[in-house]
């Protein structure tokens, strides 16, 4: 019976994800336009709703250019690897309440996988191949540079991505995404709201969210693919459908990451009165799916809003951020979580510890910038002794 359910789930997930990717383009353009005080696309359908269809048709009919001297096999394989891995990551993400006893529609393709989160990270790590091969096989120096930068960025940001989730795993006792949701939905009523992991691990959520943004090459971390720097980075030479596949992979990654954030930190399908673990009124399942969809939608909108709020990071700032800031902070977060678990302390200590950690880290960085070794100092020491004017 399970394979019938899995097939239905696959069809539903593929359809929903691909359709959502297409309409994410519409949402992004309209949202960007409103933030920039202009109207987005409004010619193609009512409110421009048929614009993604027009874009899709454009991609299908465009001329497919393979540059001379490009490695043909790798050139064609690269975008398919990107799309394949990001779609595969969706296999373990539940989009509704999976029944714990295994009977009934599972609302996920493979929701009972015990290594849920780790599977997602492992599979999305493979997406680096798409980037590297795409840039290398284009026979273009700028693409190669872009893909090098992008692969360095993606690989570096996977470390804090994984480390920040370990705290959640410790609290929930498992990496199975469904168990993580259930661990956040224990208490009825408004107390259930405070069971969400965002309250006790805000630092982990921040690090996870930022690392996930960096993983999908999204502003403010989109140096490898921005136009001002590298024309298009690793997807400069890609034209019609292959470019559409890179695009699709990026938006699918955004969707996956939003789902993960909602599930790991915001309680998944839980909402204090209408969608609790014990609700089984008629249609409760639909309400739970809608609650999860609403949370994911809000997170995606926030990701898009952030794109138009923050300026882009320079590459060395990117690398500094992950290696010198995120990794130590997530390690300390993990340490705090381990102490709490070992000595059975209340989890609200972690909230205090997060605040203390952020303040301490900021203080340390300010201290190092002013008085630290000369490499880390923000401004050079004044040359007052020699009488030469300070430049």
């Amino acid at each position: 019976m399970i394979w019938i359910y899995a097939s239905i789930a696959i069809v539903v997930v593929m359809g929903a994800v691909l359709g959502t990717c297409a309409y994410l383009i519409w949402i992004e353009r309209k949202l960007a336009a409103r933030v920039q005080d202009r109207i987005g696309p409004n010619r193609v359908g009512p409110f421009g709703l048929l614009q993604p269809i027009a874009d899709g048709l454009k991609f299908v009919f465009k001329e497919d250019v393979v540059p001379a001297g490009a490695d043909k096999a790798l050139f064609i394989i690269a975008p398919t690897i990107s799309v394949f891995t990001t779609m595969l990551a969706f296999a373990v993400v539940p989009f509704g309440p999976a029944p714990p006893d295994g009977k009934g529609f599972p609302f996920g393709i493979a929701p009972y996988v015990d290594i849920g989160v780790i599977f997602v990270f492992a599979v999305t790590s493979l997406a680096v191949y798409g980037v590297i091969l795409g840039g290398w096989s284009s026979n273009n120096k700028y693409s190669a540079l872009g893909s090098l930068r992008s692969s360095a960025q993606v690989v570096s940001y996977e470390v804090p991505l994984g480390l920040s989730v370990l705290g959640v795993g410790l609290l929930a006792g498992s990496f199975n995404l469904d168990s993580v949701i259930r661990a956040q939905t224990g208490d009825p009523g408004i107390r259930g709201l405070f069971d969400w992991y965002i309250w006790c691990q805000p630092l982990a959520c921040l690090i996870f969210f930022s690392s996930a943004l960096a993983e999908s090459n999204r502003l403010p971390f989109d140096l490898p693919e921005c136009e001002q720097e590298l024309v298009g980075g690793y997807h400069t030479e890609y034209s019609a459908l292959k470019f559409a596949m890179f695009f699709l992979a990026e938006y699918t990654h955004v969707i996956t990451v939003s789902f993960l954030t909602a599930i790991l930190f915001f309680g998944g399908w839980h909402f204090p009165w209408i969608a609790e673990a014990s609700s089984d009124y008629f249609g409760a399942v639909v309400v739970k799916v809608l609650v999860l969809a609403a949370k994911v939608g809000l997170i995606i909108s926030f990701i898009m809003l952030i794109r138009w709020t923050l300026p882009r990071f320079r590459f060395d700032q990117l690398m500094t951020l992950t290696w010198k800031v995120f990794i130590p902070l997530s390690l300390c977060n993990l340490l705090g979580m381990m102490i709490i678990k070992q000595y059975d302390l209340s989890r609200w200590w972690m909230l205090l510890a997060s605040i203390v950690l952020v303040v301490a880290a900021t203080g340390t960085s300010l201290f190092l910038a002013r008085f630290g070794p000369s490499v880390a100092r923000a401004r050079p020491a004044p040359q007052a002794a020699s009488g030469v004017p300070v430049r």
Partner: protein
Amino acid sequence: MPIKNDDVTWVEEPEFGLLEAMYLPAIAEGVKTTLKHFFRPQTTTEEYPEVKPDLPLNYRGLHRLNRDEQGRVKCVACFLCATACPARCIEIVGDKAPWPDRDKYPTKFVIDELKCIYCGMCEEACPVDAIELTSIFDLTGRSREEMLFDREKLLAVYDQTVGSGKDPVRTHSGPLGAAAEIVTTLFPAGGSASYEHPPGPSVAPGTSDASQHNAPP
């Protein structure tokens, strides 16, 4: 020349304390701005084909040849516009005018609208306000020959745009032509201007009442 102290502005670097180094308050401020624009957008987009833009009065668009009160073409074939044109797109053939009060009139007056750079030099050069540039900017044609506007086409542009509310300013000048307008605005103290007696500050000798002085030009 050394820089004067008054011209120097000293700027202090903004304070960069603990709160600023966290960057989170700055990000929150940014998100607040972005959200404010999202929920209360003031779109300045003009949706073009449905909403035509509001052009200023001196907009330099398509040319037209003006008619006088009797409906004759005002142009006297003096060749000033053709000489002034930097793109050399005006071609004129003049001949003896059939009317008694004119010397010459153009039998052939062709402007190549595709060569024209719409600078307005011809409009400025014309002494009789015959050629003017209207506000028509969305002119299209299907062949190069179609865009060679001869005298009849230019007069037709006049017939279609006169009185449209966007008439060029020079049409309204008095019998002396556009030059008269400059005098009128400089010395607004009434009457049609004439060069013999420009109304100036009429202060009787001995009085020093400031209200008698005209505003300085």
